[in-house]
């Protein structure tokens, strides 16, 4: 069992490998935000922030915060040279119109059809969907970055039981145990973490998993 921090690092590092030079990417709050720290220096990824800009840069040095410049989680950030600001209508035109190459989001549940539930637990947690529903529908690729299980219970299910964020939009699931692609035929395990067995992955997953004939070891 690897510790929480290492789990997040493994997931974020693996997701970071999904991008190619010039990709426009929106990273969700939390773990997905950490992906930015691991993007290869030779790959220029342009981060979109749905509150209204492209060219999202790292947090400013202490004392250099600009009260007018925050990310979608209201944290102080910077804007890279060549960045551009716009209003929310334009921001979501960019998102819904397919001008974002990939979005990385966390999940409560994902299922065999690529359905995603990540915005509410009825009677318990109703924060609102924010921009998540638009991002999942609009981005060319939807990558889920999450821990494989929650308190030991599988999050990759045959069918989501929580209210959906979107239907059939997930393309890839990256966890600390492996990388799973959503295909027409179902979920395909393409990579597996080192020191993890296929049996362990299957045990931690409720959904049916097709084991790729070219199953690789995940680089972490």
């Amino acid at each position: 069992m690897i510790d929480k921090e290492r789990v997040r690092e493994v997931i974020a590092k693996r997701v970071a490998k999904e991008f190619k030079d010039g990709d426009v990417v929106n990273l969700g709050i939390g773990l997905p935000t950490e992906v930015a720290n691991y993007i290869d220096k030779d790959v220029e990824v342009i981060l979109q922030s749905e509150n209204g800009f492209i060219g999202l840069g790292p947090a400013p040095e202490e004392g250099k915060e600009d009260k007018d410049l925050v990310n979608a989680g209201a944290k102080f950030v910077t804007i890279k040279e060549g960045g551009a600001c716009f209003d929310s209508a334009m921001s979501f035109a960019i998102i819904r119109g397919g001008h974002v190459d990939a979005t990385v989001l966390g999940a409560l549940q994902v299922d065999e059809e690529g359905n995603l539930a990540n915005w509410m637990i009825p009677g318990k947690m109703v924060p609102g969907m924010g921009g998540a529903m638009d991002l999942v529908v609009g981005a060319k690729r939807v990558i889920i970055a999450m821990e494989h299980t929650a308190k030991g219970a599988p999050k990759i299910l045959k069918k989501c039981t929580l209210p959906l964020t979107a239907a059939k939009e997930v393309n890839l699931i990256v966890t600390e145990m492996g990388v799973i692609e959503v295909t027409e035929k179902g979920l395909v395990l393409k990579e597996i973490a080192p020191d993890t067995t296929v049996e362990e992955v299957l045990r931690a997953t409720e959904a049916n998993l097709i084991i790729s004939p070219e199953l690789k070891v995940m680089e972490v």
Partner: protein
Amino acid sequence: MNKIKKIDEVMELIKDGQTIMFGGFLGVGTAETIVDAIVKKGVKDLTIICNDTAFVDKGVGKLVANRQVKRAIVSHIGTNPETGRQMNCGEMEVELVPQGTLVERIRAYGAGLGGVLTPTGIGTVVEEGKTVLEIDGKKYILEKPLRADIAILKGSRVDKKGNIWYSKTTRNFNPIMAMAADIVIVEAEKLVEVGEIEPENVVTPHILVDYIVEGGER
């Protein structure tokens, strides 16, 4: 036409039961001076339209905390526990709208369109009770336009005619709301002379703005 008013003068326009739009994203780009004055005035039963309910002590969250809001049409309430509490005990109604749909519904009203046809929310609870149209083989929800009695904007630089320029991420919903309300009030962080904002760099043209209040940096 002098649009520049004292805060007390514009407060006369704010009344119980109104629908008010507020620019801002988690409080960034919200007219704090005007919000504070509305808290002080204590008008009740407001319907607020905003991206979110911000924080208990920031942005429109202060109106929620002061129990002035009857209904909120927003995309997110997670940062303001008071909204959740009032919603759960039935003191306040919350209509959750996907962020892109929310801004496009406001734009639809302001642009004279009959509604928005969006794929966002198909296959989720968002489509419940709404008309779904299939256009060229793809499904879209018909979402209705949103209007307000008053729109309250925050402008980083506002000229004396009412032209607005927004700094960085303060823009968000402000320019869209400027089109969708009967009365539009802007809080100017910095009031500048007419001509200081180049015509090409004006984001909200002055014809959309009715009143200007000086707010300063905060």
